């Protein structure tokens, strides 16, 4: 049977059979290893391959003003996702995407994708697509593999007011990530203002669902596991009065400065404006880098919240605090007086009064009414730096108020210790004291501090920590609670001295010689204090701080206008308008805004 000629011998067929059998045998062993030994392990891998945890972004909490007027809400926006591996397969599609999204180098995907580590996972290419881009992508859908759109919530700022106060949201940066629990790269978090301060409450908690996806991350199937519902963020009901806020901002248009309004009986902030300002809506979606660059490089610093983050010398607005310390410490009596010649000599330096020809004899009430500098130079020298420090401390000046908005500046309340530290033990003289006793020199405060101080004088008993959130509402359960953002501190002063100080502020407006007597109004008795802070950079800063009505204060207002000149003319009128509008509205209905606008058409 066996043949051994040159064609087809047994030995040759054996060579073929052995080689083939060996390879098929090895293959079978390999299959047994993969399928029988590693079977369950690899099956698990295939399961995790296809079931993806898809985050459900919770709806961020809304914000309302004190009259339940909606300020900040959410709306839908389209986000473009792309699968890098799919897109890179087609150079044409890549160029098209680059063209639509406006990348500088159309062929460069490294610019398009944040991370090249997971080319098979979808990555967010752009949030908040404009309508033009959206339609371009939809039109060319077939030519753009690996791209898909997803609807995601976008922050909507319904008013362009209160930008500094409300803040904005943006993608969390890698450096910030540790500060935001439960967040991962690319999530939106509050970056400034209330959005930042209350981020934990506003953000809510993410949910997730398990979906069956194919290799491109496209959902192809039904729910593959239990769904965890997201917990929506809580709504903030603010103390803010939107109309007053808008009025305050409109008064600051074209100016640089800040306005703060507080309800003295509660410490609730009614308005907190800073100028110049910006439109918070530009941060809501995808921030164009040019917009960002423009804001950051603007020399007028529109991003700065001057009411809270900038410090200024308070000028004469500090005088009530100095007088109070004089009376409370027993340094002077209520009948104490100083004769003003227009200047005071200390050592070899002469300190002049704002009225160069002098005020004549000044009692304690006269000194407030007419803001006599010589009176306060003399008193300040009696008190010394520590007395002035105590004076400021009584009204929480030169320290952070603790307002619930974060990134607050403290300012400076000088003391002996401060001077020793700054100039050395014997490096300073009595000659430094007159300046700080009229709120110049080293003294620095924020407009917010000055407003809270005036609110305390208006109230007469308590200094109250200013706050912006009135209550927090759980939009799901309807449960309402008040946050721990308020504090009342009794003012360390006798009622008699307090009355005297209040009377002084009344005379500033109502007195015959008051520096703000142009605000006098028999229908609405107001009180206040002007301030003109010398500014080494140019024109003086104008201050006015006041409250109204005198007998039952509803509002305390502080106005600061940088380079505004005299407090009486540069800031006083603005404060007058705000106080009148608010009080009128509160007691008599519509204020300036709604006045006869519709009636006129009848």
């Amino acid at each position, binding site marked *: 049977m066996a*043949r051994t000629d*040159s*064609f*087809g*011998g*047994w030995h*040759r*067929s054996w*060579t*073929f*059979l052995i080689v*083939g059998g060996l*390879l*098929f045998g090895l*293959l*079978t062993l*390999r*299959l*047994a290893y*993969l*399928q*029988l030994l*590693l*079977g*369950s*392990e*690899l*099956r698990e*891998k*295939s*399961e995790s*391959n*296809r079931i993806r945890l898809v985050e459900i972004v919770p709806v961020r909490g809304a914000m309302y003003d004190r009259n339940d007027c909606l300020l900040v809400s959410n709306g839908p926006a389209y986000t473009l996702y792309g699968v890098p*591996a799919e897109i890179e397969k087609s150079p044409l599609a890549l160029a098209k995407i680059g063209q639509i999204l406006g990348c500088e180098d159309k062929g460069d995907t490294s610019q398009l994708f944040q991370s090249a580590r997971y*080319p*098979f996972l979808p990555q967010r290419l752009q949030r908040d697509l404009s309508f033009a881009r959206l339609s371009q992508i939809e039109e060319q859908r077939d030519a753009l593999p690996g791209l898909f759109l997803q609807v995601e919530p976008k922050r909507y700022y319904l008013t362009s007011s209160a930008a500094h106060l409300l803040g904005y949201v943006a993608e969390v940066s890698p450096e910030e990530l540790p500060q935001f629990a439960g967040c991962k790269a690319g999530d939106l978090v509050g970056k400034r203002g209330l959005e930042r301060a209350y981020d934990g409450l506003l953000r809510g908690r993410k949910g997730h669902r398990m979906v*069956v*996806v*194919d*290799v*491109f991350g496209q959902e*192809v199937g039904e729910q593959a596991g239990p769904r965890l519902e997201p917990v929506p963020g809580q709504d903030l009901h603010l103390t803010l009065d939107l109309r007053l806020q808008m009025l305050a901002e409109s008064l600051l248009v074209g100016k640089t400065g800040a306005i703060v309004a507080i309800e003295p009986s509660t410490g609730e902030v009614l308005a907190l404006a800073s100028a110049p300002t910006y439109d918070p809506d530009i941060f809501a979606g995808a921030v164009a880098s040019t917009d960002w660059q423009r804001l950051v490089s603007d020399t007028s610093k529109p991003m700065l919240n001057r009411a809270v983050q900038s410090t200024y010398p308070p000028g004469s607005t500090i005088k009530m605090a100095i007088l109070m310390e004089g009376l409370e410490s027993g340094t002077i009596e209520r009948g104490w007086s100083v004769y003003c010649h227009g200047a005071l000599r200390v050592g070899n330096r002469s300190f002049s009064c704002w009225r160069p020809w002098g005020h004549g004899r000044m009692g304690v009430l006269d000194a407030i009414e007419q803001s006599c500098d010589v009176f306060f130079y003399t008193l300040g020298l009696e008190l010394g730096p520590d007395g002035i420090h105590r004076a400021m401390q009584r009204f929480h000046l030169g320290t952070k108020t603790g307002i619930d908005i974060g990134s607050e500046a403290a300012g400076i309340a000088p003391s002996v210790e401060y001077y020793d530290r700054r100039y050395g033990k014997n490096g300073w003289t009595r000659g430094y004291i007159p300046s700080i006793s009229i709120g110049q020199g080293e003294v620095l405060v924020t407009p917010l501090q000055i407003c809270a101080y005036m609110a305390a004088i208006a109230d007469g008993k308590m200094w109250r920590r200013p706050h912006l959130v009135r209550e927090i509402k759980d939009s799901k359960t309807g449960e309402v609670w008040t946050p721990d953002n308020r504090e009342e501190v009794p003012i360390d002063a006798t009622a008699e001295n307090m009355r005297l100080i209040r009377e002084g502020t009344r005379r500033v407006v109502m007195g015959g010689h008051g520096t703000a007597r142009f605000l006098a109004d028999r229908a609405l008795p107001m009180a206040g204090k002007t301030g003109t802070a010398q500014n080494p950079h140019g024109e003086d800063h104008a201050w006015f701080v006041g409250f109204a009505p005198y007998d039952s204060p509803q509002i305390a207002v502080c106005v600061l206008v940088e380079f505004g000149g005299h407090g009486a003319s540069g800031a006083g009128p603005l404060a007058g308008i705000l106080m009148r509008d608010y009080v009128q509205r509160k007691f008599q209905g519509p204020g300036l805004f709604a006045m006869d606008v519709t009636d006129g058409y009848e």
Partner: protein
Amino acid sequence: MPGKFKPPDVAIAASVLALVGVGLLANYSTSFAVAGGAELVYLERQLIWAIIGLGGLVVAMMLPTRVVQSLAYVVFGLSLLLLFVVLFAGKSGLGATRWFAIGAMRFQPSEVMKMALIVGIARLLSDHAKNIASARVIAGGLLMGLVPMVLVMAEPDLGTAVVFPVTAFCMLGWAGVPASHLLIVVMPIIAVVTSWSLGLHVGLLIVLVAILWRQRLRLMALVSVSGIYLIAGAVAPRLWMHLHEYQRRRILTFLNPEADPLGSAYQIIQSRIAIGSGGIAGRGFLHGTQTQLKFLPEQHTDFIFSAWGEEFGFLGAVFLLALFSIIIIRGIRIASRTHNPFSGLVAVGIVSTLGFQTLTNLLMTVGWLPVTGLPLPFVSYGGSSLFVYMTMMGLLLGITMRWREY
């Protein structure tokens, strides 16, 4: 005349039909993955080709051996011409020019070449059976394998190209070319493979020369063989630079999978997961998640075995291996038993082509060979391949029908 025709080999016929059936099932599954069952794109076309292939099988089976033998060179020459023409007039896809389009059908001349090469070399070697060890016959046989290889590499289709010289080599070996001569033939390949390491390159040369010396090769022959070896080693790195980017990446990925975790290695990883997750009995027809969710790349062509392995498990995979083994074992048996040298060589050629392509594809899907792009015979989607393999099976069955003819 009784006994002139025997019924064709039942085991081979049954295995072929079973393999075609497996292929249709697998293509139904991958079609399902693509269109969710709405359009059975791959299945429909594959079914049409299977019917045409069945016709080819019957015709090839009925052809008298003499006719095949006399037409062998003509078929080979025509196929070579087609391979040449397709480079200029063919349709492109995936960066390669491989097809002629006839209506909706695509036709791949490199598949026909597989069969043409087998009959061509069988004719050459059976015609020169007396001086089989002569350099001219060996060179002629090798050249018949190398020319189509070069043409197909130019398409480029690296995987298919390698099939031709391997088939030629196996047939030469079967025809009785001495081992030393075959070793000389393989030496340039060894030279290329070892060209990355000078020490290994030269060391192996010394070993090979020593073996050939013991086989009493003449000095001049030894010198020229060594020269070719060294030249091949020097030229290889330059040719390397000539390869397509994706080809180079595939080879490099195979040599070092860590280097490219998301290119070719991704395919191998997903294929491994697909096969492994099948377990012993599989995940069930149309229930393989790797396949149905398209995690498995090239699942209807190169990686169709992974889809099969996922859905039908170890038992299904071994069943598939058994079908191929039956054809190969029976084919070798036919080759060693036939009285006609031409028929024997045709049978060996068919077995070699089928065996090599099957093993290359399967070893690739389990991660033991680089991703070369060779489809699995009978099973992978591809009409030309199915048609040609079925026709070749017709030739093989024809031999079993008339092995007492002479």
